[in-house]
Structures are given as C-alpha cells and as structure tokens.
C-alpha cells in the first residue's frame, strides 16, 4: 500500500512545483480576481441602473456564463481569443496570444458573472436612505456610487468576495485542459515523468487542502469581525 511511498520525488520537485506551478496559480488567481471584481461591479451597476438597455444585456451575460461549464468556456476562449485579437487590431490573420493570456481573459470574464451577483447583493445591502441622502447633498450618480454606496457595498461583501476568490483559486487548476503549468499541472507533469502518480496527486491535494482551509478559516474570522462592527 503505502510501503513504497517515495518522499524524495516530492522533495526533489519542490522548487518546480512552487517556483513555477504555484507562482502561476497565484498570479492567475490574483489577476483574474482583480479583473473579475472590477468587471463584476460594473455589471452589477448595469443591472441595478434601471435602464433596460443596460440591465437586460447584463442579466443575459450573467445567466449565460453561469449556465456553462467552466471547461467549455476555457476551450471557447482558447480558440476565440486569437480571432478577437485579430478583430481588435485589424490584423490579416488570427493573432496568437498565448495560453496564459487566453486563460486570464477566460477566468476574468467567467468569474465576473459570479462576482457581479455578489456585488449586486452588496449594493442592495446598502439602505435606500443612503442614496437619498447623497442626492440631497447634491452628489451626482458617479459621486454617489464612488464615495457612498460602493465603499459600503465592498465592505459588507468582503467575506463573500474572498470566498469566491478561494473557489477561483481551486478552479484555476482546470487550465490543465489547455496544458498550462499551474500547480496541479506541474504536479501532474512530474507524476507522469517519474511514474509517481500516488505521491504527487496526494501531495497536491494536501497542499490545496491546507491553503484553502487556512484561507476559509481566516475569512470566517473576518466575517465575524465585520459582523460585530456593523
């Protein structure tokens, strides 16, 4: 059973696993979460704008993204992004953008749908009186949003945004399907190379478990603190 569990395979590949794989995973997660939260907030504002021409496309976008499997969306963008690049730059043929860019675009656009639902709840959690007060003070829409509503909405939603980021962190492992070397991809490459599937996959699982468990415990603690302040 575990009698021939070879710890040296793991120890020997640590620099590769973390130096290449984990750096990739964390970079992709951080960039996609930042982009996703910004875009998601814009989508949430569109949905709550009360203008049908903005609200309806935003709603369709969110529901569309949420009905598709992430793996399919990754494939879609992997093939689509070169054509979008061609269309945007006016080049004569599809431009090659590299798998990382296409993964980043995918995760940003996909997660924006989920972040927008959180931000929509966040904006709605700020009481109507706040908007009325801001308008009574003579603030315009942009000022009301930027200085009154959004700061409170973000603050209320920080725990949920972070929880969604943990989900995103786990989801980035799916870049495996377009052969990118994230943490899981690195583990899988070593596993195939050395024929050590058991060691590498168990190790990868333990690392993900420790990181995500620690992160979600911290988020829960933060949630309790935010709850007391309000």
């Amino acid at each position: 059973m575990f009698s021939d569990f070879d710890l040296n395979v793991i120890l020997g590949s640590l620099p590769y696993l973390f130096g290449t794989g984990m750096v990739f995973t964390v970079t992709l997660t951080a960039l996609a979460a930042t982009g996703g939260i910004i875009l998601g907030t814009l989508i949430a504002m569109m949905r709550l704008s009360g203008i049908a021409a903005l609200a309806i496309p935003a709603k369709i976008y969110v529901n569309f993204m949420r009905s598709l499997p992430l793996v399919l969306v990754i494939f879609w963008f992997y093939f689509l992004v070169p054509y979008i690049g061609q269309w945007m730059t006016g080049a004569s043929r599809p431009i090659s953008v590299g798998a990382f860019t296409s993964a980043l675009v995918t995760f940003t656009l996909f997660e924006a749908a989920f972040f927008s639902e959180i931000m929509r709840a966040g904006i709605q959690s700020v009481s109507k009186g706040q908007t009325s007060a801001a308008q009574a003070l003579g603030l315009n829409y942009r000022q009301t949003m930027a200085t009154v509503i959004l700061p409170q909405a973000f603050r209320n939603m920080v725990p949920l945004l972070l929880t969604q980021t943990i989900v995103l962190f786990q989801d980035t492992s799916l870049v495996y399907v377009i052969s990118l070397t994230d943490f899981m991809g690195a583990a899988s490459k070593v596993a195939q190379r050395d024929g050590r599937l058991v060691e590498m996959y168990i190790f990868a699982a333990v690392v993900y478990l420790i990181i995500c468990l620690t992160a979600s415990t911290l988020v829960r603690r933060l949630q309790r603190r935010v709850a007391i302040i309000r």
Partner: protein
Amino acid sequence: MNYNWNWSIFFDQSPEGTGTYADMLLSGLLWTLATALCSWIIAFCLGSIIGVMRTLPSKAANAIGTGYVELFRNIPLLVQMFLWYSVMPEVVPENWGNWLKQLPNASFYTAVICLGFFTASRVAEQVRTGIESLPRGQRMAGTALGLTTAQTYRYVILPIAYRVILPPLTSEFLNNMKNTSVALTIGLLELTARARSMQEFSSQVFEAFTAATVIYLGISLLVVTVAGKIETRVAVPGAR
C-alpha cells in the same frame, strides 16, 4: 473574421465511423446526463445524511459532518478526480486495485463516485442551512409531542427544510451537471469532450462549441422550469 463557417458539418460522417458528428454530440449528451443523474443520487443521499449530522446535538456527529464538508470543499474537483482515478486503485489492496483497473467504463464509475462525494459536501451545506433556518419551536414542538429525534426529523423538520432549500438545491444540481465536464480529464466522453473531439477531427471549432453551448443552455432552462413546477406543486398552502 476570416473563419469558414460550415453548419452542415453536423451531418458529415465522423472519422470514428459510428455515425455523423451530430450522433457523436448526442452520445456525449447521454453520458453527461447519465453521469449527472447517477452522481446526483449519491450526492443527495449522502449530502442529506451529512447535513443532518451537522445539526444533531451529538458532538461526534457534528465533527464528522464538518470534517467531511471541509475535506471535500477545499480540494479542487480536478485533483479529486485524479485521486479517485489514478491513486485509488494503487492504495487499496492489490487484487481490488487490479479489479478496478480492468473495469469497463472505469472513467464513468469514477466520475459518478467522485462527483457524488464532491457534490454531497455542497448539498450537506444546503441541508444544514435549511434546517437551521427553521424556528427552534418546530423542534421543541416535535419533542413536546413525544416524538423521538429521528421522528422529529422525519415528520417535522426535513419536510419543511427540503421545501426551503429547493431553489439552492436546483442550482447545486445544475452545478453538478456542469461539473461532469471535468471528467473529460479522466477520459469520460461526455458532451464537452465530444465537442472537443469534433473540433479536432473537423477543425470546425466554433460550430462544435456552439452546439455544446446550446445544449447546456437547453438543459439548464429545462431543469429550472421543471424545478419551478415542483416548487409550486409542493408548496405548503399558506406558508410564504
């Protein structure tokens, strides 16, 4: 865009020699549905048990329930898939492992088990939330009537809790259906995998993925409609 659209590609014979590309996608759809339904049965039963355990007075039951949920929620699905598929046959006794390895349709059974256990942790959270959302008086009334804990759950708490969590359970069902696509990494020929192989054979990328997208949207729409019907059907008159 200088892409050559060819929508009649679906009626061309696929190089596998088993029918047209449309047949290929259809067989993918059937595998997706079979995997989603079988794993949902496991997820629903196991998830309900774990969810109930987390609301019981017993400390041990609580700890096991919490441990289960934390374990399965904090490891990416892809990693779990590989653990069940590649690691499981190696760490069980050797003759079991050999039996597992030569099982026909191994990727299907693995995907069902893996998704069942994974989604169970999500169902458990919903069941727990549903039970905790009920007023404490319900439980007390059950006890006051002389019902045992098991009877209180069976006749008082669960019938209401399941009604409360029907909408989130619907989205968990859909998530589970979408997650079957992760099983393409262990060789399950479900819908996304078939769209991918159609793209590889015919190089009609966007037709293949459009078809898969439309099918997924169709299933979602169908499930949401049916769930809405069930919700009105089982609603307790006068409640909410």
